């Protein structure tokens, strides 16, 4: 497991631009529900937006890429390397970080503990892994300020935060460790306009620094303006892949609801 001490500064493998992330024949069913059917696609560096109706399979695809869910069939390749993502640790070790739609925060723990959950800075003492709380709090404050998230007290339990603030904490966790691939499942869903703008700004900076960023969103006008590449999903399939400069919202909506195929 993660026996190494997490670096206090964002990791040194600072997002060495990944070539491509390829899915081939990826399927996933939940009982009778075919959440994903024969997904074939390739993600490249820059910003890819995934849009689609509720239940289209967007989160399922993200969870497969982050090792939370195992596909029934199919292969995933990052660059030249075949990935066998059997757990979130595998994904992380392959340089994939995620913000989950449900955030996956531990409510009773404070902000710092949540950002570092699973990657605590520790030192060994009498066979125990003793937490370096002060160093982590400092690093958490740095991260929050780097991503323009202003939370005065990182010792506040996450359950005392608003929906938007919780989302901000989850976002901070996903960007803190400088992974080359960042998956964001509806990062702005709980945010007001001002906060959304701030998050979009963060995403822009991630992309500028050469990362591969994949974002699931329902904010179609925003993603059309930002993304380098768009994927439209419906009923477990990819129904359209398009350069956002060569499409418009009407066309995208038509693909989403199935009036065009």
């Amino acid at each position: 497991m993660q026996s190494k001490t997490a670096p206090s500064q964002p990791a040194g493998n600072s997002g060495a631009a990944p070539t491509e992330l390829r899915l081939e024949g990826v399927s996933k069913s939940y009982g009778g529900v075919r959440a994903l059917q024969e997904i074939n696609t390739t993600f490249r560096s820059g910003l890819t937006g995934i849009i689609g109706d509720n239940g289209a399979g967007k989160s399922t695809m993200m969870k497969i890429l982050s090792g939370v869910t195992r596909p029934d069939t199919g292969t995933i390749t990052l660059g030249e390397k075949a990935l066998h993502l059997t757990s979130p640790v595998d994904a992380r070790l392959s340089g994939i970080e995620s913000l989950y739609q449900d955030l996956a925060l531990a409510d009773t723990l404070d902000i710092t503990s949540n950002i570092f959950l699973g990657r605590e800075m520790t030192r060994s003492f009498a066979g125990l892994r003793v937490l370096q709380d002060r160093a982590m709090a400092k690093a958490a404050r740095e991260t929050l300020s780097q991503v323009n998230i202003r939370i005065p007290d990182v010792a506040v339990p996450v359950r005392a935060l608003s929906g938007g603030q919780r989302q901000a904490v989850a976002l901070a966790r996903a960007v803190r460790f400088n992974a080359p691939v960042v998956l964001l499942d509806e990062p702005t869903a709980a945010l007001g306009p001002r906060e959304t703008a701030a998050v979009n700004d963060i995403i822009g900076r991630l992309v500028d620094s050469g990362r591969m960023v994949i974002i699931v969103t329902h904010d179609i006008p925003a993603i059309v303006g930002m993304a380098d590449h768009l994927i439209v999903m419906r009923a477990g399939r990819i129904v359209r892949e398009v350069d956002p400069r060569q499409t418009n919202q009407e066309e995208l909506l038509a693909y989403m609801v199935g009036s065009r195929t």
Partner: protein
Amino acid sequence: MQQANMLQRLFGAGGGPLERTPNKAVLFGLRFTNLAVLLILLVFFALSAPGFLSLVSFSNILDSTSVFLLLALGETFVIFAGGIDLSVGSMLSLGGVASASYMSERFAAGDDGVLTTVVGILIACAVGLLGGVLNGVVIAYMKLDPLIVTLGTLGIFLGIADLISNGLPVGDLPPAAFTLGNGQFLHVPYVAIIALGFAAVLSFVARKTRFGRYCYAIGASQESVRRAGVNLNRHTIMLYGISGALAGLAGMLNAAHFSSASSSAGANALLVAIAAVVIGGTPISGGEGKIWGTVIGALIYTLLDNGFVLMGIASFWQLVVVGALIILAVYLDEYQRRLRLTVGISRDTEGVAPALAADGAAGQDSTGAKASA
């Protein structure tokens, strides 16, 4: 909720910085309710029960607290992590009977060396660890509810204790065991030193180590911990293993104290252990709580117990009172939590809400409102 809102208004939540200070005082006070109850009980019994304020009485209290404090300490960790271990009482019996059987056999064979007692301790801990690991493995790998699993092992451990002892008390323990169970250092029983030593170490583990942090995190959200890449199964097994080992040790010390072990030794132990945890302010829902709370909870229980005896109240009442106390403690805790949340949030909406504001301006359109949901 309504009272909480009133209090919030009374203490000027959401007001200026001056009015905010009382909030902190309230929170500070709430944090120490258990301690306050303990002190009130101490004073009450000191005034009403003759002979209560004596060294003998105090070392009695420590003595009888210690054994089930060990149980309660393990239980506290399990409850932090959102689980429950109903088998600790049976494990106390089993650990006691197993180690006492060995010790009394060696003693009967003419071996009265200290080593016999040391091995007796190791046997109790090992048996406890084994049983606890069994709990953990079943809970982790078969994905069963700990309530049911440990209810099952409650029966299994008790049955094995009966099998080993033939349902009879095991006596004739070596003198070293008696010394361990009844000796004192500066009027503090050895048993109490052991239990408090464990409390200190486990408090450190809970607050300062990664293991402790994962316990709380699992109690808050098992899924979040899984996604964080933590090996949940290993953690669960360790957790129940610790609980079992402490229960086994408690069984040995109990046997040493009474110079006898029996399968009925742990009869009320489960009730008392959970009472100590809950009275100590650890919510049964997991994710938070304090080890020292459990120590105070255990002391409150024993204090009532001893006080009742000194006041000449029939011992049957004690169980009734403990049961009622558990329910009262849970209620008070729940009430506190609501209050804390309300008071806490009024503070947060002042300070924390502009979290995402890109520059300076307090962007708290929807954010503040959501927090109170």
